[in-house]
């Protein structure tokens, strides 16, 4: 419960004291530090004691709303906390006064709160509510400051994400009409007992579309590359790292807990979607010159790997997916933060306008290289272990084409990253460099410090991939054993 | 059917009838102002009758109070709303039916300041009705 309450309280206090930038900053940092501690505590507890559940309002499940912390949720909350803190620190040195005054900090806090809620909730409709909190907070953040490109991106982001809400609500309605319940655990039970006359798989398609849009799968992802590059880095980084992951997480939740009647079909669809998404995303990345857009498209193609793990639907693959999520969150946020640093150091986000940073900014080069290579799946970085796991299962299931695509996309990702490297870090100094102003020491500390911290975490994840993967494996076991979840929510013997 | 029931039925039917008349009026009347004259009032009256029927039917203080309060609210608000629409319509140049015999408001608005002067009446030429 605390991961929701802490950012919430800080946001409330910020809203009450509207316009006080310094206080907002302080509250946001305090909130995210608090969130980090709460997340760590939660993960430790869940790891030791198993799935925790809390009946909000003390109303028994499945009647009241229940928050359920299993390992996947706890892991994701921890990631949200880490990213939140890093991005907020980064923001203190990069956010403009206007956005700071107009609610950047409370919006980020509320976004984090929405995510934590979405990870924790054990109720389908409540999930919708958390989704909406995230959604509206992200709308506000996206549109904040409103340049033309930003507004244009926002319109698309908005319209297509509202389709998510519509599909989701429809799906929830149909499920309730079929089963009379909203509690995930109760639904899991009911749907497993559903007869053939119940159109369960059809309803599953509604959720597949809804969360597929959210997770930015092919061909539902168009909102993402239209919008993610338009806001400031301290906004897009948090979007890039966490928002689509919530979609993936939701996909995982419903397609492990609820819709497992016809996995050959539903998960087969997910598999095909994943393969197409990988290709489509990586090709998109190659079409652009703006580094942020390139990264945005890579989110899409990387998301597909996570969905692939779900589609393969064995413990090892799901463990891979969870590991992949953790890895990708760290890496993509680092990259977005680095893109900000690149723009700060080179004067532009466009690789054609950049050059020679390898010579002048060795630390920045390193900060780019590590996550970029990790994203591409170069060993021994975290991305490699994540891809290897999925590759192993894909090949074990004799899905040759999918494996080939996964590998090819890995290569193309590397190609794409190297193109940035060649253009921005190598090559002669770019024309945009002239407009660069020197950085103040405090700025440097906050900007580089937060980025460095995330890159270090990536390295740590690479190095301690073993323990991390074990945790992911335990998390995936929880996902594939709904009985444990049901027992935790509805009590033993149900 | 008791007397109360009969009265209730009468009120209900009268109310519904007035409301229907309001609707017929809005269809039949030739210009905005006549439509409003024909509808706003009969509908208001119709609602009032129906609410009275409700009060009578339930014969309960709380419910009666609600019904009467509804009437009160309607009587308070309907004329103001009507006034606002009519004025807006006039200001936007909604044309009067050709049978209108005089328009003493014409030319009295100062469109810059929004002031409305009080002066001597003038005659308005009738106009056709343009579409929006």
């Amino acid at each position, binding site marked *: 419960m605390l991961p929701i309450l802490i950012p919430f309280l800080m946001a409330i206090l910020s809203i009450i004291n509207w*316009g006080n930038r310094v206080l907002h900053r302080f509250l946001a940092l305090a909130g995210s530090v608090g969130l980090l501690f709460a997340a760590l505590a939660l993960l430790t507890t869940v790891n030791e004691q198993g799935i925790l559940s809390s009946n*909000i*309002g003390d*109303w028994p499940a499945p*009647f009241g709303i229940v928050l359920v912390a299993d390992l996947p949720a706890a892991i994701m909350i921890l990631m949200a906390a880490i990213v939140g803190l890093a991005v907020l620190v980064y923001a203190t040195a990069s956010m403009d006064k*206007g*956005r700071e*005054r*107009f609610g950047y900090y409370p*919006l980020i806090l*509320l976004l984090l709160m929405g995510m934590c809620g979405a990870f924790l909730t054990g109720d389908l*409709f*409540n999930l919708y509510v958390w989704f909406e909190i995230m959604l*509206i907070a992200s709308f*506000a953040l996206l*549109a904040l*400051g409103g340049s033309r490109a930003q507004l244009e991106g926002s*319109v*698309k982001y908005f319209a*297509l994400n509202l*389709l998510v809400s519509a599909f989701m609500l*429809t799906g929830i309605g*149909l499920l309730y009409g*079929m*089963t*009379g*319940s909203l509690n995930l655990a109760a639904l899991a039970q009911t749907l497993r007992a559903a007869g053939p006359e*119940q159109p369960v798989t*059809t309803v599953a*398609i*509604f959720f597949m*579309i809804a969360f597929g849009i959210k997770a930015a799968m092919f*061909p*539902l992802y*168009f909102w993402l590359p239209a919008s993610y590059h338009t806001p400031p880095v301290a906004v897009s980084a948090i979007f890039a790292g966490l928002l689509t992951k919530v979609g993936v997480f939701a996909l995982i939740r419903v397609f492990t807990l609820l819709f497992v009647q016809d996995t050959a079909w539903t998960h087969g*669809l997910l598999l095909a979607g994943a393969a197409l998404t990988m290709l489509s995303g990586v*090709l*998109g*990345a*190659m*079409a652009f010159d703006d580094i942020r857009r390139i990264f945005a498209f890579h989110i899409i193609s990387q998301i597909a790997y996570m969905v692939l793990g779900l589609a393969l639907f064995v413990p090892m693959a799901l463990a891979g997916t969870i590991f992949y999520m953790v890895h990708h969150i760290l890496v993509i946020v680092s990259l977005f933060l680095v893109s900000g640093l690149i723009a700060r150091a080179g004067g532009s986000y466009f690789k054609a306008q950049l050059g020679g940073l390898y010579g002048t900014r*060795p630390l920045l080069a390193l900060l780019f290289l590590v996550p970029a290579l990790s994203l591409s799946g*170069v*060993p*021994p970085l975290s991305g*490699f272990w994540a891809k*290897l796991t999925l*590759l*192993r299962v894909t*090949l074990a299931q004799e899905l040759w084409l999918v494996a080939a695509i996964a*590998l090819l996309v*890995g*290569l193309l990702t*590397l190609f794409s990253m*190297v193109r940035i490297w*060649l253009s921005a870090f*190598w090559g*002669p100094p770019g024309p945009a460099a002239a407009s660069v102003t020197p950085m103040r020491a405090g700025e440097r500390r906050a900007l580089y410090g937060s980025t460095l911290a995330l890159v270090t975490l990536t390295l740590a994840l690479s190095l301690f991939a*073993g323990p991390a*993967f074990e945790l992911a494996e335990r998390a995936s076991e929880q996902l594939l054993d709904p009985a444990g979840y049901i027992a935790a929510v509805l009590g033993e013997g149900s | 059917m008791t007397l109360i029931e009969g009265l209730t039925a009468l009120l209900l039917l009268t109310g519904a009838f007035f409301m229907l008349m309001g609707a017929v009026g809005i269809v039949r009347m030739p210009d905005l102002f006549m439509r409003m004259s024909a509808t706003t009032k009969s509908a208001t009256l119709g609602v009032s009758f129906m609410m009275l029927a409700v009060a009578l039917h339930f014969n309960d203080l709380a419910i009666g109070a609600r019904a009467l309060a509804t009437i009160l609210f309607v009587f308070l608000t309907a004329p103001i709303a009507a006034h606002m629409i009519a004025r807006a319509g006039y200001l936007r140049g909604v044309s009067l039916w050709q049978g209108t015999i005089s328009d003493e408001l014409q030319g009295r608005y100062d469109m810059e300041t929004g002031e409305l002067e009080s002066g001597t009446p003038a005659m308005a030429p009738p106009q056709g009705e343009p579409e929006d």
Partner: protein
Amino acid sequence: MLNAVLAAFVLAFAAPLVARHMPRQVGTIAALLPAGIFVWLLNQAEMALGPGVVERWPWSPLPGVALTFRLDGLSLLMALIISGVGALILFYAGAYMHGQAQAGRLYALLLAFMASMLGLVLADNLIALFVFWELTSITSFLLIGWHFQEERSRAAALQALIVTGGGGLALLAGFVLIGLVGGTWEIAELSAQAGTLQDSVVYLPILLLLWLGAASKSAQFPFHFWLPGAMVAPTPVSAYLHSATMVKAGVYLLARLSPALGGTSEWSLLFMVTGLVTLLLGGWLSLKQNDMKRMLAYSTVSSLGLLVTLLGLGTKLATEAAALYLLAHALFKGALFMVAGAIDHATGTRDLRRLRGLAGALPTSALAAGLAGLSMAGLPLLAGFAAKEFIYEAALFSGGGVWILTLLLLAGNVAFVVVAQQMTLRIFAGASLSFESFHAPAIPLWLAALVPGALGLALGLLPDVTATLAGAAARAIYGAPVTIHLFVLPGSVTPMLLLSALTIAAGILLYRRRVQLEPWLNWLDQGARLGPEGAFQRLVEGLPHFAARVTALQQNGRLRSYVLWIVGTWLLLLGLTWALRGGPGLPANLLVRLSDLRFHELILVLVILAGLASVMLANTLMTLIVSLGVVGIGTAIVFILFGAPDLAMTQFSIETLGVILFVLVLYRLPGVVRLSPRRTVLRDSILTGLAGAVITLMILIITDLPLVSPLKTWFAGASEPLGHGHNVVNVILVDFRAIDTLGEITVLGIAAIGIFALLKLRPGRKVAEGKDGP
């Protein structure tokens, strides 16, 4: 062994620091580490040559992946080459790079590379091996692009990375398959699984994947082109990575996996054909190069082809030959590269046509080149001689297609003789030319080259040492005990000796007549360029264009097209599901169910539908808004009719406020224009009509099923006694499901912030402190 690898990595990080503080000594200091490792390896030699040294570290990122190191004959040989040549190269680089900016980074990268390479040859787990394999690719990439401001360097670096990186991914797939079939990634355990692996249906795929990985890394045809390109790197890099060590990784891998996967006809065919084509192509293309380094690079390609051929052949003799040649080649090629670098450093050119008679000016380099060249040509007393003898012997006893094989090998070896002459006679002999800015090389520049040259001689003179070293390696490759019998000079005239002599004679002849060869060498070169390299170039350049076109097709900037994709996908998935997995049937007794419709309800339905039609046909903004209002009010009346006063109340209020907002915000917008052509309208109508029909169908199906809602019953019963409220809906909202409501008001709050900011914070508008409060 981990310590050695880690130490190199650590020193790599420290190198820039050392370089900053001791720019002069940094090369020597850096060289101390590989030298130390070299000595340590020699210390371990006895164990390594016997049972082997095994180290296990408790680090396992994934199940089945382990940090196991094994020092056996093969890895010892490779590790000695890596650390030995590494020490020399660093020593050499200290002088070569002296005074250059960011030299520290070069040491760092070289050390990091060395660490990776050591890891590669020592690792006993396929995945661990792969980790180091890729690390060598990355370090190689950074080193090839050393002159990063030059387009040429960047292109070459990219080429090398993509070719080896792509091969690496194929290799990974191969490894994973091996692991799946063999049940382990431990190399030592895989030999025992040879039968399982070779009988598996994926054996051929595994081989092909392995081929992709090894061939790309070791610059085999058709991936050979990246290696000459890589010569844009500084010479120490070329000498170390691109001749002595990294390019041998592919060969090493084949050798390493030979016991588990080799010995089949598929294996032989695949690798021998590849090797021979590469041997000839590289060798003969080396003949037409004017740049010393490019010539050496093509020659290296050729040598690698030779090694691959031998490993493909896979006989006992062939493995012996391979081991010997591996050793000899590292020494003479490393030396020749360093000589080339020294000449470049001294004269400012690497163009063979501009170099002559350097013996006087660079006597020590000439000596080094001479020793290396003789070894390369395969003259007696030198390490290269023994290797060549064994190569021919292996060919002659290969047991099939002997003459063709021998002839092809001969043709390849002739080219080496020519290159050896180019690197010695052509540039050092004759009258000396004068160079504008000639400066004598620093000691390391010739000393580092002389040492391997001399070692080639020493090994030739110490056949026992050579035999032991190579024999142990060959044993690891062959998978059975191997003993090599070596000699300083042949005791009798053997067919192999005759072949060697023939090789040298032909080489000398060819060297003299090289000008006549030009036309058809040019033709070969053209073909090689247009073939694989051209294809690669076209791919790299065309890919972004292709990507842009594919992307523009989807990401066309039109929101409606995105919506169409989504709706289309949804309908497609539903259609597929119903077609392939059995869809729900049409619900029965619709008419009966419809008959309970009452008159006022029918009117309500008509009103809503009419409002809807009006919304769709509206051509003014106000009509649109008002029509939306009709639909909203209609919805609210539905709520009234079916027992939801709270909903109706809320809907009415929201509707009113919505209208206010609509009017407030939109009244400045232009009227509603119709922009779509008739065909689009028709398409959209059909599609959305289908969508609507699907929804209707779903509702009808589901409402036809029985529903027992436990929630409904429970809430109705609990509301008063437990929730202290008579309005169950409200009790649910503020108590049973209060957190939903909490979320809902949070959404509202955020919306307010967002709207406020949207309206008040605009680009270009100054934000005044304290004046923008709401």
